[in-house]
């Protein structure tokens, strides 16, 4: 696709596919949460993800790095994501996906705060404004 010197960047297709697939995951999670409990959904989620993760790994042919810190943080990533997903599925049992998904999508609030406190990363103005909007949205949606 080409419009007067502007070319639709290749990476944007992948970003749009990612947005669609993650959005579809939120939708499917709500459908599943109607009948399955969060633990059952998480088991199915993990089993469903495995073939894709294996295909990704085989395709990239990565030589596995074994830095101890990297291993620990990698494992912690998987555990934290898994436990967080349990919370997401539990929230979906009583509230609409169109409300829960934007709220849980605010997780960067904590990442930004932790990176600021523990890693001494500085917050930019856009992130500060985003934090205010995020807090306002949580208050409004809690009503």
């Amino acid at each position, binding site marked *: 696709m080409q419009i007067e010197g502007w070319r639709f960047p*290749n*990476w*944007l297709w*992948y*970003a749009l596919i*990612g*947005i*669609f697939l*993650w959005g*579809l995951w*939120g*939708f499917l999670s709500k*459908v*599943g949460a109607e*009948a*399955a409990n969060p633990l*059952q959904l*998480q*088991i*199915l989620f*993990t089993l*469903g*993800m*495995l*073939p*894709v*993760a294996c295909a990704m*790994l085989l395709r990239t042919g990565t*030589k596995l*790095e074994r*830095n101890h*810190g*990297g291993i620990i*943080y*990698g494992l912690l*990533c*998987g555990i*934290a994501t898994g*436990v*967080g997903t*349990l919370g997401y599925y539990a929230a979906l049992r*009583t*509230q609409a*996906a169109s*409300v829960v998904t*934007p*709220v849980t999508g*605010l*997780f*960067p*609030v*904590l*990442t930004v705060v932790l990176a600021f406190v*523990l890693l001494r990363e500085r917050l*930019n103005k*856009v*992130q500060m404004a985003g934090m205010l909007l995020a807090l306002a*949205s949580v208050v*409004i949606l*809690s009503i």
Partner: protein
Amino acid sequence: MLHWMVYAGIAIAMWGLNGLFMKLGTNRISAHSMVIWVTLGFLLLLPFLWAETGLAGLNARVIFVGLLGGAVNGLGNWAVFACLEKGAKASVAIPLTALYPLCTIVLATVFLNERPNAVQWLGIGLALAGGAMLSYETAPVAEREEQLHCAQ
């Protein structure tokens, strides 16, 4: 049962913590290796989940939907990963992909007949904008200097 916002808070806390672990992990090993260890982290949870519950009582449709959810999420991870590999700047691509709840909202209102009220729509709009803005990271100094050099 607790208020849904408590469970959503657990998701925010754990996924937010994951973002920090991700930063710390990729400072030490490549993103590709990280994928392997993260997947193993997921697997570590499985025995605990199995000990608490099984899949008995679930019909084939729910099992299919659950498995499909996992596959779709994994493919979404691959797409975002590929997006960054194809040259997208993380400061642009990550806030963009943080808009994925927009897609869930469209699907849920069309296919599940969800009808948020006016106040909830306001909250949803603020959450979407806030989520995207929070994911915005300015380019690293080296990258900015390179851009400046190129512009000159």
